């Protein structure tokens, strides 16, 4: 699961301009059978998000929005049951869920007296039944269930994955008899930055090739693949902040990471793709 930069680039290369549908994912799995599905999905999702971030602006010009809306209207007039919105999104290379949001927003602007609030739109995307127009509701729903990178369902899946891995990590810590403070406890105490776990007694993680171990004060669980972009963002927003307050620590990228990114070991930020096995505690060592 730990990929070299070259391996990662090879995968990322295959993901250029691939729509975020379940069909694309299936093909990707066939193309890289040796990689785990979760890793592939995580990479795909991150690459796609990068792509969307780059192109986001051009889909949000008023001309583009008007153009999409007209095409949508023309499409549904012809056949309301056809996947008009989904095909439009794929055609212009934009995420279906986000396209649905654009059209919904535009639709509501036209049909409501006041411009729709963000929370109203979010709520309608979560539950398309609330959308006053039945055809649009179906179109939006179709976009959301077919989008594997964006949308409320995907967000929920990501959140659930993150939560599950935190629980997993907590169990492992309990199993190893390592006492810790979790995020909620830290927040209750008023910490301004809260890693998933702070070890109340630090441990040393031994590395197979290094003579010295690495001290670990905190552990952050990341249920995603650690690519350059996300890792640097995490470093800046989280990992260094943890270091600044609690000293060296461990990041677990459960879906792997780019090997070359594990370059801050000496500085005190260690990357792993699983819970470390060689841990030495203050009083005794466990294999």
């Amino acid at each position, binding site marked *: 699961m730990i990929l070299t930069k070259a391996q990662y680039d090879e995968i990322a290369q295959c993901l250029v301009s691939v729509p975020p549908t*379940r*069909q694309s994912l299936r093909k990707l799995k066939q193309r890289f059978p040796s990689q785990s599905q979760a890793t592939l999905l995580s990479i795909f999702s991150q690459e796609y998000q990068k792509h969307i971030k780059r192109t986001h602006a051009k889909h949000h010009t008023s001309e583009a929005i008007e153009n999409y809306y007209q095409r949508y209207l023309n499409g549904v007039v012809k056949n309301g*049951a056809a*996947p008009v919105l*989904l095909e439009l999104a794929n055609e212009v290379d934009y995420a279906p869920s986000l396209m649905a949001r654009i059209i919904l927003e535009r639709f509501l602007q036209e049909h409501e007296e006041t411009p729709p609030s963000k929370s109203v739109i979010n709520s309608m995307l979560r*539950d*398309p*039944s609330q*959308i006053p127009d*039945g055809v649009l*509701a*179906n179109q939006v*729903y*179709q976009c959301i*269930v*077919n989008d594997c990178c964006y949308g*409320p*369902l995907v967000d*929920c*899946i*990501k*959140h*659930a*994955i993150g*939560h*599950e891995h935190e*629980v*997993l990590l907590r*169990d492992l810590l309990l199993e190893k008899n390592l006492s810790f403070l979790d995020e909620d406890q830290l927040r209750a*105490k*008023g*910490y*301004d*930055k809260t890693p998933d776990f702070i070890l109340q007694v630090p441990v040393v993680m031994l590395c197979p090739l290094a003579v010295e171990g690495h001290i670990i004060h905190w552990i952050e669980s990341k249920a995603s693949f650690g690519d350059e972009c996300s890792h640097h963002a995490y470093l*800046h927003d989280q990992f*260094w*902040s943890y*270091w*600044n*307050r*609690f*000293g060296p620590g461990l990041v677990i990228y459960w879906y792997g990471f780019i090997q070359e990114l594990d370059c801050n070991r*000496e*500085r005190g930020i260690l990357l792993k793709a699983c819970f470390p096995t060689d841990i030495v505690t203050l009083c005794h060592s466990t294999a």
Partner: protein
Amino acid sequence: MAAVLESLLREEVSVAAAVRWIARSTQSSEDSPGEAAVLNSLRPLRKEFVPFLLNFLREQSSRVLPQGPPTPAKAPGASAALPGRPGGPPRGGRGPRSQLFPATETPSTAAEAPLTRRGGRRRGLGPARERGGRAPGVPEEGVVGDSLSWAGGRRLRGSGSPSSPSLTLSDPPNLSNLEEFPPVGSVPPGPAGRTKPSRRINPTPVSEERSLSKPKICFTSPPISCVPSSQPSTLDTSPWGLGLPPGCRSLQEEREMLRKERSKQLQQSPTPACPTPELGSSLPSRTGSLTAEPADPSRVSSPQRLELVALVYSSCIAENLVPNLFLELFFVLQLLTARRMVAAKNSDLELSQGALDSLESPLFQSIHDCVFFAVQVLERQFQVLSSLDKGTLKLLAENERLLCFSPALQGRLRAAYEGSVAKVSLAMPPSAQAVSFQPETDNRANFSSDRAFHTFKKQRDVFYEVLREWEDRHEEPGWDFEKGLGSRIRAMMGQLSAACSHSHFVRLFQKQLLQMCQSPGGTGGTVLGEAPDVLSMLGADKLGRLRRLQERLLAPQSSGGPCPPPTFPGCQGFFRDFILSASSFQFNQHLMDSLSLKIRELNGLALPQHEPGDEDGESDVDWQGERRQFAVVLLSLRLLAKFLGFVAFLPYRGPEPPPTRELQDSILALRSQVPPVLDVRALLQQGLRARRAVLTVPWLVEFLSFADHIVPLLDYYRSIFTLLLHVHRSLVLSQDNEGEMCFLNKLLLLAVLGWLFQIPTVPEDLFFLEECQVDAFEVDIAASEHGLDSVPVVDQQLLYTCCPYIGELRKLLASWVSGSSGRSGGFVRKITPTTTTGLGAQPPQTSQGLQAQLAQAFFHNQPPSLRRTVEFVAERIGSNCVKHIKATLVADLVRQAESLLQEHRVTQGQEGGDPAQLLEILCSQLCPHGTQALTQGREFCQRKSPGAVRALLPEETPAAVLSSAENIAVGLATDKACAWLSANITALIRREVKAAVSRTLRAQGPEPAARGERRGCSRACEHHAPLPSHLISEIKDVLSLAAGPRDPDEGVSPEHLEQLLGQLGQTLRCRQFLCPPAEQHLAKCSVELASLLVADQIPVLGPPPQHRLERGQARRLLHMLLSLWKDDFQGPVPLQLLLSPRNVGLLADTRPREWDLLLFLLRELVEKGLMGRMEIEACLGSLHKAQWPGDFSEELATLFNLFLAEPHMPEPQRRACELVQPNRGTVLAQS
């Protein structure tokens, strides 16, 4: 002056009498009448004797100290072509002093201009001048008379013989007139500008050879640079580059030249400088040519004379009449290790042979003389030498010249070496550690607003980001702190708006400073002597290789010789540059406040006093700790004081003193109005009184070392310098009386004070000038008989850490061994050693009253560890007591508040009223209970303290002592806890209740279902259920298949659906990995799945006729869903979505439409109590509002009627089927 020396040489006066005469102005009864007569006649000259002697020795040795081979490159011409070499002799016909002090200057001018630093004079007048103007009772004629007598006397005697060699070689006015040869002078501002070396007691350039020598450099301290330059640039070309015509050479050539010059410089001078690779590689071949002239005791030219001068000189050193002990030792070791003498003209040598007993002949006529003199002095300084570190001792003991000239001294040194345990080592410290986040001081409660809290959060991160970048990059060539980080730092400082944020940031800054730089940036790293055993194994000839290896391994950095200027080595550079780049007035002010406070706190720390006579093992363990604690406190204080001095004097510091007297006077008038940033004088006086000079003086020296030119002229600081001079003089090493200061303590103070006196901004005359005032000054130090001073708190490690320049002695000796005089100045480790020990003991509780006095008295005769233990226990128990009250009493009150709130809501209804009002009501009921806190707190301290004291004190502690200690601990802990509680308990209860109220109100918000008690999985559960994320993802796939578009071969099998629902059940029952949002989505997805089942919209895998789910399968799946909804979901399930227009609309697309599954589902929902009839009816009713195709509306209406027609029966299932099916069949058949 010379007259004095000559009287000595002629044995008219004994050395002892002379030294007594120098040291004390009054005549001693020990002096013989003859001596007294001679000395009395010379009385006016008394104070000038020492500077004269020092300069005399320097001058005499000038032909020896230019070390290194006289390579062609070092010919005078070549050197002269490079004007502006730092410290180099000035060009031009006249020496600097001839410019400074024209021969025509009269005493009256001097008298008119005391203290002036006129434009042309810069560092100004020699002591003689100033003394002439200032010191009362010193006749002005004395100045003239002195120089005249010296010159005149010489001329008279010299009439027979042409002259001394030095005289012939020199510019006559330089030597013949003391006016032109002031004992302490300075180099005029050279072209190199700010790189001007400070004044030192300098040998006058008296000969052509002088231009080769670099003794000036080795005695000088480069000036303080206040420009933020993170490191000495190896390409600093200014001193040499100026000599090159611009544009005539390529940069590369220029660099090459510079490099050559640099290595020449290194070869000829012992001045530490940056070693270059060329130097290292050329070393082995060069060693051959550097073989020193052998020194032979039998060839010493005038042993008696040399011995006498050595005796006088040593006595001056012993009496602390010289400003800097270690500088003199360095000088003596230079003489010892002199390689060869620069050849004087033969005629001069011959001429000088006749006058051995006078000063007219050179004192050092050969290497033999130098070595003889050096050994003579060293013999008398054995006590100091034996206290040096083991590495230095070894080098001294192995010095063959020393062995040759004084086997006895060598033997003593060897014995000292063998007995020495003073290994000075540098531990490799960990890289920077961040200051840890402490909720007590750092959480939201410590900030005025959320915004301030979050701003500070960001600032902390920016600060460390900047620090990390500095760590990574500051050694890269061309990297510049200001360019790289300046704007970021200023942007960050700009966000610190509130005063409270400033104090937070300053606390972080100061803590980080202490954490990273507690010991000075590795300047103690004297690599050569560090591992003497390794060196001896390798042999001297391997040294070059070792050195090169070290050069590769360690970042070279020039060290400033035995008197380096104040610097910010290692990490300290970061903090210095940060302050400069931030250039924030508010930050500096807060920093000074914080540094001052911390200095006061540490300076007042009750450091334990060692009881003599208690030397068993147990107390030794204690003792180690005490010594370590002292070292930590001292190093912290020095660091803080250094930064305080730096920041405090920053606005005033410039490279030059004020140019005119008028300007200086006005500045003085202005500055004397400004109160000192910290009352250091009071602290010094307190320190002296309490006999804690060993703690106070070293940090005060750090503070003063950053003073600007004006500071020493201000009355306030002048009095401090006077005090320090007095302290310096009083530290006579040979006196070792009972209750006196310990030897190494003294040595530390002598070293730091000596260093201070060499700082460029400290007026050079200060040392020699203040004498008479010193005599008049007496500090009352009898107040406390046992102070820190008499406790051996200083060891060699601390001495060398505080005064890394003492290591120059070792480097000098090591370079002798390695056969290279072009030594590198010193390798400075990149990472500074830091001690990680905390500061341990807290300042004592200062409670008033008789009891407190008694307690103090009780501790007085107990081991210091007892007091520390008691104070520690009291401090901790007191603190724990507060936490205990929070966890018990306050927590109970919070629970009461919560139940009161519930009651209130029951009586007042959901809308319960204004939360603020509610809070007031609750607080008014609960806060009175806070009074219990004091009682409970007292009980807690009473209960906990004695056990802790008992556990921490040794078992043999007498019962009475133990119980007293326990009682005191209880008392102190109670005081501490109750003081806090009585002041804060009400506010604390209020805060906690407020938090609880808002928590409760929030929890009772819009999501009532989320509140309920959640069931976990059973104990036996092994958590093997599928993960929620996996299930959502699977269900999503089914939903997307159903929603389309899909490929023809895509679909799901009924078995898969069944399996999926089975897994969903497992997951919902396990709950280990389930979080509320996931459950919500699962619930919603399951409802949608049900709708798809009802509408028969799920594409089933298989051949075309079977593309639809069998009715029975669908019913089974719906049953599974119903049971999941009923039994397994703990959160709300949005069942009403089943009847949303969108989901019902799915039915509209199917042909033929089948309603039975929907009706079945609705019945089951009602039956299982999942939905009420009314609710369903409302949903069905609202369905009519939607726009449907005509026939669909009709069918819907029929369904509605059917559902309404169903009786409310206990077993409606069968009946409903019977009733519905035929009718529905006809409806569907028709459609």
